[in-house]
């Protein structure tokens, strides 16, 4: 039993580490973009290596636990949840890395329009990732009730940014490269929100044993 509990604790700790890393990556990538801070962007981009490493390490450990111990009830739900959420966390890491790369490109491009929407979106998405990782860590889903609204907010913001950039491209065709980056970044952040919702569903299942759908 002790061996099993030690392995479960390591699995959970690794998943929390991965979750916190994903939170930091999304937060810092958007920060790097809005501040034009290439050093922070480079640093954030590099963190993806660890996320990818944790993804495969945790997957192997979780499968090993299923094979060796056949966990039941809450233990089973924890392992099943972890197996699902590491995929979402890896994606969040990847999107953050893409945002960091966009930040590096955009730092050399003169700003063509006010990009207030991006930091607002980034902040909202970061909060979603942070809250859901905390919910997983503390097995407390009280902050997950409004994920559907938070997700809708990001969707609306993305559409808004798309529209602004389309106008910009028409009015100032030389800004097309930068605008495409802004559009992509808004799309990445919106996807981070989607993945946070999927994690929230899985964490709710882990805690309550009931499947929920956040749309």
């Amino acid at each position, binding site marked *: *039993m002790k061996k*099993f509990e030690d392995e479960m604790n390591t699995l959970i700790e690794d998943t929390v580490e991965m979750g916190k890393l994903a939170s930091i990556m999304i937060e810092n990538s958007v920060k790097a973009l809005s501040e034009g801070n290439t050093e922070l962007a480079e640093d954030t981009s590099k963190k993806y290596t660890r996320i990818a490493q944790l993804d495969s390490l945790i997957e192997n450990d979780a499968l090993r636990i299923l094979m060796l111990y*056949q*966990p*039941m*009830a*809450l*233990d*089973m*739900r924890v392992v099943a949840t972890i197996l699902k959420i590491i995929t979402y966390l890896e994606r969040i890491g990847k999107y953050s890395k893409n945002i960091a790369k966009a930040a590096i490109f955009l730092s050399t491009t003169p700003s063509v329009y006010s990009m207030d929407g991006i930091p607002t979106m980034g902040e909202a998405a970061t909060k979603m990732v942070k809250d859901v990782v905390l919910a997983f860590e503390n097995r407390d889903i009280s902050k997950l009730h409004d994920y559907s609204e938070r997700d809708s907010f990001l969707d609306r913001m993305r559409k808004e940014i798309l529209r602004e950039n389309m106008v910009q491209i028409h009015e100032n065709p030389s800004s097309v490269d930068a605008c495409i980056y802004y559009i992509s970044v808004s799309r990445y952040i919106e996807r981070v929100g989607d993945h946070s919702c999927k994690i929230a569903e899985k964490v709710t299942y882990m805690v*309550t*044993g*009931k499947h929920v759908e956040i749309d």
Partner: protein
Amino acid sequence: MKDNVIEINNLNLWYGEKQALTDVSFPIRKNKISALIGPSGCGKSTLLRSINRMNDLIAKCKIEGQIMYHEQNIYDPNVDVNSLRKKIGMIFQKPNPFPMSIRDNITYGPKIHGITDEKELEKIVERSLVQAALWDEVGDRLNQSALALSGGQQQRLCIARALSVSPEIILMDEPTSALDPLATSKIEDLACELEKEYTVVIVTHNMQQASRISDYTGFMYIGKMIEFGDTESIFNRPTENLTERYITGRFG
């Protein structure tokens, strides 16, 4: 309820001064497999044996409460225990074939219940062995001693023997604990097959076995039925903390 073949209501059982079952109530659903799990000494085998009055054989055993079967309490004084056990058969932990031929093991029960026609008996032998998934292995050597069979085959023979008197319910008390994984798997497949025509109640120490084959699971602890429900709920999200602790291995 019509889906219940048996309803156990407030069953209390004492061995002398010691209370072995306390206020146990739960239904046994028709044509389903119900599993009873719990630590050693929790009363699950005692409970199983109460269902066909095997505890009558134990001195100083006192029972209160009801086990309703076909709208009659099986503990009513006018119940014929022999015909009750014909309808509710039992399989034990260790295979216990009679020291006689395979055929005679099967015909023993029907003969006691008055069947003498040879052709009829032959039909019963074949049907019982087919249902117990043993016919293909022993159909051509029915006169051989049952004791020459492997442990897994002996256990299936005991199941065939129980089936020979056309029971309605089959009680299994840790039927695979003396068998290897392959023989265990055959008995488990058999139990799932039997469920179509019979009702099965199985006591097992192997929780994976309970989760693999049963439709309903009851968790017992110190003579009490702590939780009874459909197997998926019990193993995914039990409502009682004791059940959670037992099935996740965090007991005591």
